[in-house]
């Protein structure tokens, strides 16, 4: 599951594998899982965080923090992609799209609900 999350952010398999190894061999995971009532969420968050850290280190694009939308509109899937896979904050997405932050959060919720209904 964690590898799938990492791969969504870093498509290069060998880099994704290295992130996975780094994640599971570090003490961060054990510390994060201690006392948590949501282990799945913890693993997802940590996998995403690790992948984004590596991605941010390697991509100068991330420093510019410029969003490109390519006319894809405000689809929940696209907003989810920007926030989860590309690491933009809901505030940054809201600011660029000219919508409110609650609308961004609702779009993310809609995307998750789409999977529940599918």
């Amino acid at each position, binding site marked *: 599951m964690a590898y799938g999350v990492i791969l969504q952010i870093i498509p290069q398999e060998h880099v994704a594998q*290295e992130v*996975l190894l780094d994640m*599971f061999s570090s003490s961060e995971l054990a510390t994060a899982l201690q006392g948590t009532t*949501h282990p*799945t*969420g913890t693993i997802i968050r940590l996998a995403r965080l690790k992948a984004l850290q*590596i991605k941010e280190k390697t991509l100068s694009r991330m420093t510019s923090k410029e969003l490109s939308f390519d006319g894809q509109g405000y689809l929940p899937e696209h907003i989810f992609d920007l*926030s989860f896979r590309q690491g933009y904050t809901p505030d940054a997405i809201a600011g660029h799209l000219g919508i409110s932050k609650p609308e961004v959060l609702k779009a*993310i*919720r809609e995307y998750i609900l789409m999977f529940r209904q599918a």
Partner: protein
Amino acid sequence: MRTLNTQQYINSGILEAYLLGLASDEEQQEVQQMAATYSEVSSALNELEGTIEDVCLQNAVPPPPGTWELLEARMHGREIKKRPKEDYRQYNRTAPEPEKPNYVEVQVDDTHIRVHKYWRPAFIAIFILSKIFLVLALYYYFKSDSLEKEIERLKTEVHQTPNRR
């Protein structure tokens, strides 16, 4: 605390943002506080975690072969040559895959090897059989030796018998 009712709070999308790691530190604390205070929020969070787990499982990809062994080796502190950090810097979404071998070099510096568990009974069986064959070989060697001596004795006796006549 905001004066939202719990259902509005659940429907706001903040729980999804929290579980996916998109919420700010302040929002994370708020969600944890809300979950501790309101059972509806806590149960919604649990339900949502199940949904997100399903989503992630749908998109699950098995790690490349050998990942578990590499992880095991790393956990046991064996010496593994990590790829240089530059490898990460070379990463670019638009760039082609680097022409590096898709493996990690491993230096094995101990004298032990790992073999399949069935080798143990095989070794024991071979050991027992070798002992049996050794005993049999010694038995037949001494038997044939004694028979040879007996034949020699009989030959000598036969040769001596006509002389007596």
